[in-house]
């Protein structure tokens, strides 16, 4: 027996398969479609997404493929037009949460066990994040959005801020793991500076789970936005945004008029799962 690099394993074999051209199609196709829709949005929509074009609550028909919503707006056109807005909300939130989360996680993870000022600051920050995380997101979102006002940007920023503790925690855990890795000592013996260690080894090795998590944050941002809309602090109508559309249509859905909620909900689910698949395929270390 030679010293094999891959130990025998009971884990699913699919996980280890490198992304080949065949397995790429189901992962990449929905994303390409999404980006196309986001880019070409206005060209694809048969109606203006913000104008009343018919009687409200019309079921899907040849004229209105996805029906009309409670305002009498065309659901299909709105689902299309919302793609761009939601990509912005999700991406901005994911980006913000990840960038801040990585920074904070690296800082706390590397300094926590030190003495002196950086150590106590790091421990304080960790506790603070725990506390922030202890609050129900939706309530903090309610408060923050009530304060900042409601538009796409504030919504994205608030959703991003809500997820900072999650990302910071993920990164911190990884940093604590990576800190024990022998390659850091090897790097130190190779003469690398502390900054080099941080940037060249700690950062890439401890952030990949956060990157994978970013796809989850994308989804959470939009669903939190929807939840806020449901509680009455979403984006003002008739801004095309999936979360707000789902929330606006929720009452109609409980009366059996499912279409104005279902289609944006499907769009959201497909998007989140597409991003999640992408992250799963490309960002897992192994």
């Amino acid at each position, binding site marked *: 027996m030679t010293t094999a690099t891959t130990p025998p394993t009971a884990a699913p074999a699919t996980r280890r398969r490198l992304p080949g051209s065949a397995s790429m199609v189901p992962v990449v196709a929905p994303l390409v479609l999404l980006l196309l829709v986001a880019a070409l949005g206005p060209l694809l929509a048969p109606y203006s997404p*913000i*104008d*009343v074009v018919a*009687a*409200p*609550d019309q079921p899907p028909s040849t004229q209105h493929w996805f029906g009309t919503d*409670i*305002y*009498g*707006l065309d659901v299909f056109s709105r689902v299309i037009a919302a793609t761009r807005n939601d990509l912005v909300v999700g991406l901005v939130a994911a980006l913000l949460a990840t960038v801040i989360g990585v920074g904070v996680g690296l800082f706390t993870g590397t300094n926590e066990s030190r003495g002196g000022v950086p150590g106590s600051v790091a421990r304080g920050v960790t506790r603070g994040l725990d506390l922030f995380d202890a609050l129900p997101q939706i309530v903090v979102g309610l408060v923050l959005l*009530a304060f900042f*006002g*409601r538009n796409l940007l504030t919504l994205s920023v608030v959703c991003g801020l809500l997820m900072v503790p999650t990302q910071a925690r993920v990164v911190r855990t990884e940093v604590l793991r990576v800190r024990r890795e022998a390659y850091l000592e090897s790097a130190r013996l190779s003469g690398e500076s502390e900054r080099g260690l941080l940037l060249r080894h700690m950062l890439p090795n401890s952030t990949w789970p956060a990157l994978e998590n970013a796809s989850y944050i994308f989804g959470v941002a939009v669903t939190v936005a929807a939840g806020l809309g449901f509680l*009455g*602090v*979403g*984006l*003002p*109508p*008739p801004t095309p945004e999936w979360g707000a559309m789902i929330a606006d249509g*929720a*009452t*109609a*859905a*409980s*009366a059996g008029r499912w279409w104005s909620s279902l289609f944006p909900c499907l769009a959201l689910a497909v998007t989140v799962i597409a991003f999640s698949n992408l992250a799963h395929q490309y960002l897992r270390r192994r």
Partner: protein
Amino acid sequence: MVRRLAKPMAVAVAAALLVSACAESANTADASTDEETSVTILQADIGMGLIKEAGANNTEFLGATQATLVRKPYVESGQDGVFEQDPFTYEGYLAESYEVSDDGLVYTFHLSDAVSAAGNELTADDVLWSFELKFGADTSTAPGAMSPVITDPATQFTKIDDKTVSITIASPGLGTTLLSMLADALAFVYDSTEMQANVSADDPYAIAWAQENPNYGFGPYEITDWEVGSYARFEARDNWILGTPEVDVVNVQVVPDAGSRASTIRAGDADIVEGLSPTDAADLASVDTLIVPTVSSPNTSQVLSLVTNKAPFDNLLVRQAMSRAIPFEDIISNVYQDRAVRTGSGIVFTNTPGYDAAGLPEYEYDPETARALLAEAGYPDGLSFTLTVSAADAESQATAVQIQTAARPAGFDVQIETVPGADFHTGRYAKIWQALLSVQAPWALTPIYTLNLLTGVDSQNNMSDWEDPEFYEALAASAEVIDQSSAEAGAAWNVAETRLLEEVPFIQIAQVQPGIAISERIAGYAWRTDNTVDYAHLSINE
């Protein structure tokens, strides 16, 4: 050892079984065994404050436990089994009768033998104490709300004897408004004996006490069990002054989500649901087993206020243009599913005795005229403004969307802004926005009250910040007419209303039908101007 243990254990188990078998169960498996009739009502979360003077309160709960000196009588409506309040006449309630002096300034009330839930008989002192409380308690809003009819109870109220009270007003034209106020929730008469026994240094009017001890009134029901924000159980009193209510028990459950409320009554799991959206109400109207009341002139209305203290609505021409840019018919059919009516542009209720609509300006959707007016006002390319609505108010949001679409061809680029309920409340009083949509539902429907409601000098309700001397002069003149149901009064109101409609500080869009659905099991629902359900008027269809 085992044997010795076994005996006590067996005893213990038997004892436990016995105890649990004997334990009193609050709920019986078969509700029909006891004869009581009960009704289940689902309410939106409208707060459960149990005294008006503590601020936010539940008017429906207070209406069930409290009583007023006079009340507005119920008459049959056009719809089978549905009653409605006649908002312009007043009959005795706690007062057996009342009379008016010849100069129309002094109203004298003869009190009945009503007994409170606490068991004390009604006296003139109860009336005096109640109004002392309303004007003395820190959190009471009566002083603002009752002005100018009642400004100082100490001088205006006189105890003639134990069973007689008189109220003096400043001008005879205020008389109908006085009666109207005395019939509404602001004027509940409390059991002063009970409340005075519970005052403390911190709580000189027993307000905090009343929040937790609801049965200090003369109303038809008492609350026997309740949990704030969740449920309340009302039991009928057999010594209510107007007899024993037909329904023995009313269970009110708070269900915050409108969709959940609609689903529940559709499935037959509730008797009455309140606070339905127009869509749900229209939807439920088609269910055979449900009654969705439609009344002749509902008092809930959607109002677009144009704030006149800043551009662009400081310009009369722009306001006039806006009055031509609103799709009244689309709003009624799309937002309200035709569960709203529009009786002209005026705001005085057209069924008011003596009402005269002659020559009132009429607002109609007319984009060309709107564009022309805008051009004349100096906006040939149209203009953009922000329309603020409360995020808690779905109908106003839907109305805003309809206006946005329809106003575009009229030259208005409407930006909709939603703010949280609490913020909306604050902002509209601060008059900081350009335009806003709100829902109004005045309790008193007298012309003087409705004309003054949104236009008062320095009033928080004057959301348009529109103060017009010519209008106030006309309004004051109408208050001087002693007979408030005469043609003379009608002509006087017409002058004021014409001025108001020409100036367009706000646009009343439509009068909205009540959002209530009732199971066919229940009879006797009566629409009231305070839009609450009168439990005492309900009965069960056998």
